[in-house]
C-alpha cells in the first residue's frame, strides 16, 4: 500500500505543477498562436521571487502574492515590447521568445549568481493519511494547484472575459469584426499566462533547488503535455499533463530517471505524431 501510495502522491503533485505550466502555455498558444519559449524562465523567475521574498523578510505569503504580480508585470512588458510586433509571424515568435529566454536566464545569473538557491519550507510537518505520512506542504501545493486550475476553468467557461477569449480563439477575425478588442484580450491573456507561470514557480520553489537553468526542465514537458492533450480544449491540458508528468514520475520508481525521461519523451512524440489533435482533441475541422 505504502509502496504504491507515496509514488502516486508524488506523481500527482508533479502532474499538478506541470498542468499549471502547460495551462499558461496553452492560454498563450491557444489564443495567440504564440509559442512562448520563455515560459520556463517566467516560471523560474516566479521561484526566484519566492526565494528573495523570504530573504528580504516578506515571508512566504508575501512571496506567493508578489510572484504572480511581478511575473505578470514582466509578461505585460514582454507583450508590449516584443510579442505585439510579431503576432502575424508565429514562427518568429519562437525565435524571439527563445532570445528572450536566453537573456532572462543570463540576467538572473548576473543578478543572483549561477549557483542554486533554496527557499525554506513555510512549515515542515507531515500528516498521516490512512497508513502513510505525507509532507503537509506538498499537500498544500496540490490543493493550491487544484484551486488555480479550477479558477482558470471558471474564468474561461463562466465569465464574459472567458467567453470573449474563447471567441477569439475560435474565430479571431469574426470576433474583431463583431467589436471585440482582440488586442486587449490577447494582452490580458498573455499577462494571465505569465502570472500563472509565476505563481507555479513560487509554489514549487520550497520543494526544489532553484537555479537559473531550471526553466527548460519544465518548458519541454509542459509543451509535450499541451500537444499530447490537444491544443484548444482546456481539459486537454489535464489529460496531457497527467500522461506526461504522471508516467514520467511513476516510471522513475521502477527504471532510472534517465530511462524514464527518454521513454516518456518517445511516448509523447509518438502520440503527438499519431494524434496531432491530441488525446482528447476532436477531429480537425
Amino acid at each position, binding site marked *: 500500500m505504502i509502496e504504491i501510495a507515496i509514488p502516486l502522491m508524488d506523481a500527482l503533485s508533479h502532474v499538478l505543477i506541470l498542468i499549471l505550466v502547460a495551462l499558461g502555455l496553452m492560454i498563450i*498558444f491557444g489564443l495567440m498562436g504564440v509559442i512562448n519559449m520563455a515560459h520556463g524562465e517566467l516560471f523560474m523567475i516566479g521561484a526566484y521571487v519566492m526565494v528573495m521574498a523570504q530573504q528580504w523578510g516578506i515571508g512566504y505569503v508575501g512571496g506567493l502574492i508578489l510572484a504572480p504580480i511581478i511575473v505578470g508585470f514582466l509578461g505585460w512588458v514582454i507583450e508590449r515590447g516584443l510579442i505585439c510586433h510579431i503576432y502575424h*509571424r508565429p514562427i*518568429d515568435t519562437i525565435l*524571439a521568445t527563445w*532570445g528572450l*529566454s*536566453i537573456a532572462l536566464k543570463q540576467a538572473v545569473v*548576473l543578478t543572483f549568481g549561477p549557483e542554486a538557491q533554496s527557499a525554506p519550507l513555510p512549515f515542515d510537518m507531515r500528516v498521516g493519511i490512512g497508513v502513510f505520512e505525507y509532507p503537509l506542504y506538498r499537500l498544500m501545493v496540490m490543493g493550491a494547484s487544484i484551486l488555480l486550475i479550477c479558477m482558470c476553468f471558471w474564468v474561461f467557461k463562466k465569465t464574459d472575459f472567458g467567453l470573449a477569449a474563447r471567441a477569439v480563439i475560435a474565430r479571431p477575425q469574426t470576433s474583431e469584426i463583431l467589436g471585440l478588442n482582440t488586442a486587449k484580450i490577447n494582452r490580458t491573456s498573455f499577462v494571465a499566462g505569465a502570472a500563472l507561470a509565476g505563481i507555479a514557480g513560487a509554489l514549487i520553489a520550497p520543494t526544489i533547488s532553484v537555479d537559473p537553468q531550471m526553466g527548460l526542465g519544465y518548458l*519541454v514537458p509542459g509543451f509535450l503535455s499541451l500537444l499530447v492533450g490537444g491544443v484548444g480544449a482546456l481539459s486537454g491540458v489535464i489529460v496531457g499533463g497527467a500522461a506526461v508528468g504522471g508516467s514520467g514520475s511513476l516510471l522513475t520508481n521502477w527504471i532510472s530517471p534517465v530511462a524514464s525521461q*527518454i521513454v516518456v519523451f518517445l511516448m509523447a512524440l509518438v502520440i503527438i505524431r499519431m494524434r496531432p489533435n491530441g488525446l482528447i482533441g476532436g477531429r480537425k475541422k
Partner: protein
Amino acid sequence: MTLRALIPSFTLMVILALLPLVLNGYWVGQLNYYLVYGLFALSLSVVWGYGGILCLGQAAFFGIGAYVMALVTKGMILPDITSSLIGILAAMIAAVLFALVLGFFLFAGRGVQGAYLAVMTIAVTLMLERLMSNWYALGGYNGLLDIPPLTLQLGDFFYEFWDAAPLFYLLLTIVFAILFALQIFMNSRYGLLLTALKGNQDRLTFFGYGILRLKMSVFALGAAIAGLAGALFVTIDGFASPTLIGFTLSTEVLIWVALGGKEMLLAAFLGAFVTRFAEGWLSEALDDFWLLAIGAIFMVSVVLLPKGLIATPLGKIGEALKIRIR
C-alpha cells in the same frame, strides 16, 4: 547560373586564406573552429532557410557525426580501420540514416509543421543528450577523450594534420567546396522546388511532386553536412562530449543562422563565423554580459530584420552588382 554569383563567396575565401599570414598560431587555431561552426551553420541554413523545416535540434546530427568519427578513429569499432576518411564517411552516413528515419517519422502522411515540429525536434535533441550522458560505454557524461587529428594516407605517404596552419587550409578547402557546391545546387531545379515547398506545399503536391521525398532529401542533405562538421570538429578538439549532441549547441547554431540570415548560405556561414569570433574576442571583456547581449541582439534582429543582420546588407550589395547571392 553565371559564375558571377559566386564572386562574393570567392572574395571571402581569398580574404580568409590570407589571414594566417597576419595572425598568430592561437588565432589560426581558433579560425579552424570558426570554419567548422560555419559549416554546421550551412547545414541548418539548408534545412531551415531553404527547406523551410525549422529544426531546433540540428546538433543531433552534428553530435552523431562527432561520436561516430570518434569511435572509428579511436579504433573502437574496428581496431584496424582508423582512417580519417572512413571515419568521415561513416559519420556522414550515420547522420543521414538518422535523418531519414526521423524525417520519415516527422513528415510522412500529413506531417508535422511549425510549432509542433519545433517542440518535437527539441525533445529529440534532449533525449539524445540524456542518452549519451548515460551511455557509459561511450564515455557517458565525460565523453570520449584523445581523438586523433585528421590524417591523410596515400600509399606510403602519410600526413597528420597537427599544426593549425595546414589544418586551416584543409578545412578552408572543404568548407568552401561545400559552400560553392551548395550555392550552385540551390540555384538548380532542386532549389526551385525547395522554394515552392516553402511557399505552398499543397500546390506542389497538386502539381504531382512528392513532398515527403523532397523534405526527407533536404533534411538528409542538412544532416550529412552537420555530420561532416561534427566529424571535423572532434578531430580539432580531440574530445567528443554529450554537449555536442544537445540542446545548447542546437540553440547556438539557430542563433548564428538567424542572426546571419537563414535564406542566404553565405550569410549563415558568416553568422556563425562572426558570432563565434566576437564571442572569442569580446567574452573576456563582457564576461557574463555576453549571453545577455546575444539574447537581446537576437530578439531585436528577429523583430526588425527577420532576413538577418548579414543577409540584409549582402543582399543590397548583390543588387548593386546585379547578382543573386546565395
